[in-house]
């Protein structure tokens, strides 16, 4: 095996090293709260957002409960304790203070940032058919195509705006899927969340365009605590995309988000993520700590589908889940998680089958390179009422080189005798033989590895909306490329 090791050290190693393209910083004057967390900070955040009293109370309750909670330590990740008092909980570009009414009033520097990231916010320059909410540190910079969506009755805006404009909807559903005391990071988020997106699709409406939110962390020493709430009323359909990047920095930054999805009877929500937070350098210096709670509730005949492509973050702690509450509801989870350098990912899903004839599918593809660690953690629970519930799980791991690790932690609990759970797991290496076949046909090793890895992920990529699938493929390629132009 000596030459296998040699190959791993030369070719693969070179191939999996690449630059982080979104690592630039935008120079804008920001209004940033001093570091530290206490009730006053929460009051300031709430006041800055001109929130009603009930929401402030909700935050404070969350905060008081959170203080009694312990940081979870069961995940297969290691990191020094995060000093939550060294983080600033609110940072917004000063230019956003007057709440610009239109894009013309938005600081061109901010628009340029998104343009550089490939997300032009001027509607005429955008991909037709995709509406974008752009969140910069703690505020939403702009939401596009709002009026066009309003014609269909669709509400798509920042959550701060939704609190002001649609308080009845927010109050009804906020925390209904992920309660404020759900877990340590969700509790923290509930206390200090700043911005995120809000979506409401009325009964029977098929959302006329893809909705997407782009999260950007810019300011140093801040945390981003986004909160997203999507409600699909009876028989409606929406496809929502989420993208994220952050500057390249030596310190770790915390991103603790909560995403709640409500699919009312007969509704379908398709939620896709391409996560490309700064992953840290080769030695594990810097990068985002991504501690995220994502969960959806599917009512009768409703369907929730999570698709994620995770290539960034120093640490990923994330388990997009579906509570299959209604009969005949469907939950899906398709995931590609790529780790390299010293990245650590502990990611997977939970499918909680409560209703009868519920069905869930889990396809997880983990790719590990460098000195990284990549774990799949999944729970499939069949409740006592879950007659004829079915789950199929497939977990595949691909190793590039021999200094990385892949782990699978599947948990299965069945409380109904008619429930079926299938689990398949494989671990493979990009073999010498595959690489040699490609090279013998004239294909250079870099291209060959990217082709083999893309092939490995195909089942997941085909679940992504088309433009995103192309992006995801490119992102993987860039993440795997040795020389980035």
């Amino acid at each position, binding site marked *: 095996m*000596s*030459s*296998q090791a040699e*190959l791993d050290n030369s070719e693969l190693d070179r191939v999996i090293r690449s630059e982080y393209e979104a690592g630039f910083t935008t120079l804008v004057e920001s209004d940033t709260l001093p570091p530290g967390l206490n009730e006053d900070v929460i009051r300031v955040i709430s006041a800055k957002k001109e929130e009603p009293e009930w929401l402030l109370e909700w935050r404070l309750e969350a905060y008081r409960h959170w203080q009694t909670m312990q940081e979870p330590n069961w995940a297969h990740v290691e990191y020094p304790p995060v000093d939550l008092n060294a983080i600033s909980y609110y940072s917004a570009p000063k230019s956003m203070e007057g709440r610009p009414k239109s894009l013309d009033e938005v600081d061109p520097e901010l628009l340029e940032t998104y343009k550089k990231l490939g997300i032009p916010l001027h509607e005429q320059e955008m991909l037709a058919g995709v509406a974008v909410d752009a969140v910069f540190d703690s505020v939403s910079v702009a939401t596009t195509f709002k009026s066009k969506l309003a014609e269909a009755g669709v509400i798509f805006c920042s959550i701060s705006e939704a609190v002001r404009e649609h308080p009845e909807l927010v109050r009804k559903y906020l925390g209904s899927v992920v309660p404020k005391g759900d877990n340590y990071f969700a509790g923290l988020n509930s206390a200090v969340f700043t911005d995120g997106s809000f979506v409401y699709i009325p009964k029977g409406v098929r959302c006329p365009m893809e909705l997407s939110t782009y999260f950007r962390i810019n300011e140093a020493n801040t945390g981003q605590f986004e909160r997203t709430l999507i409600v699909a009323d009876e028989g409606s359909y929406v496809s929502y995309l989420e993208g994220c990047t952050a500057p390249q920095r030596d310190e770790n930054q915390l991103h603790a988000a909560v995403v709640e999805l409500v699919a009312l009877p007969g509704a379908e929500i398709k939620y896709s993520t391409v996560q490309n937070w700064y992953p840290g350098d080769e030695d594990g210096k810097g990068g985002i700590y991504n501690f995220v709670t994502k969960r959806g509730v599917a009512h009768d005949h409703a369907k929730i589908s999570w698709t994620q492509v995770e290539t960034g973050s120093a640490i990923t702690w994330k388990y997009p889940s579906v509570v299959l509450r209604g009969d005949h509801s469907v939950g899906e989870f398709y995931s590609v998680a790529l780790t390299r350098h010293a990245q650590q990912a502990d990611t997977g899903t939970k499918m909680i089958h409560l209703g009868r004839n519920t069905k869930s599918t889990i396809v997880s593809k983990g790719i590990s390179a460098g000195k990284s660690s990549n774990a799949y953690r999944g729970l499939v629970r069949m409740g006592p009422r879950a007659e004829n519930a079915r789950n199929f799980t497939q977990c595949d791991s691909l190793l590039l080189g021999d200094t990385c690790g892949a782990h699978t932690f599947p948990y299965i609990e069945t409380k109904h005798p008619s429930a079926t759970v299938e689990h398949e797991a494989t671990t493979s290496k990009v*073999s*010498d*033989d*595959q690489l*040699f*076949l*490609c*090279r*013998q*046909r*004239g*294909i*250079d*090793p870099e*291209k060959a590895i990217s*082709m*083999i890895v*893309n*092939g*490995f*992920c*195909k*089942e997941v990529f085909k679940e992504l909306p088309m433009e995103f699938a192309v992006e995801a493929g490119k992102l993987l390629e860039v993440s795997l490329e040795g020389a980035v132009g």
Partner: protein
Amino acid sequence: MLEIRDLHASVAGQPILKGLNLTVKPGEVHAIMGPNGSGKSTLANVLAGRDNYEITGGEALFEGKSLAELEPEERAQLGLFLAFQYPVEIPGVSNMEFLKAALEATRAAQGKEEWDSVTLLRKAREACKQVDLDPQFLKRGVNEGFSGGEKKRNEIMQMLLMEPKLALLDETDSGLDIDALQTVAKGVNSLRGPERGIVLVTHYQRLLDYIVPDHVHVLSGGRIIKSGGKELALELEQHGYGWLTDDQNGGNDKEDRTA
């Protein structure tokens, strides 16, 4: 085009080839025969540059360039093609995608015009037809779930498209029934031409009924111990390898290193 002089090579540190000489000129078809473990597949893999197969002495020149100094993809780009004995699967990468990448890389390196996707698809379909492979196979993952015979025909299909200068066929006949053998042979014969060299590595004479070689060599103990015309293959068929290898040491002491 291929000039091998006193070639010594080892596989994972184990000497297998021990002073092999062979010259292949454009337009010639050479058959390399020999008992199991004689080093036939090693020769094919050494020429193609597989990892672990190391040249320890002598030289192998292809188009005047020393193969030892070239990466496998550079050899392929120069026009050296190996049809594998055990073609490996690449799940999720379609045959078409694979062919596109291969042809882009090799045609550009050889200064040939680039094929647009319409041309490529048409050529690929023709090549499939030539080896009796359903064009649906172009959409499937490379060798993914193919039968043994389909994998071999897929190799020949790739060879037809890539139009190599020198084609090495490593036991392409093994595991094929007589119909498939004829199909494969037809494909190989269609590539015969004054510009192209073909080296067939085979254990059995059977393939040579359909692809008639210009030269036959018997490899044993890591060396060519006898060369002749096509009639030599028939002699081997009748008498086996014993009469040639009895006085050669090391005929059967090692398995072919292939996979």
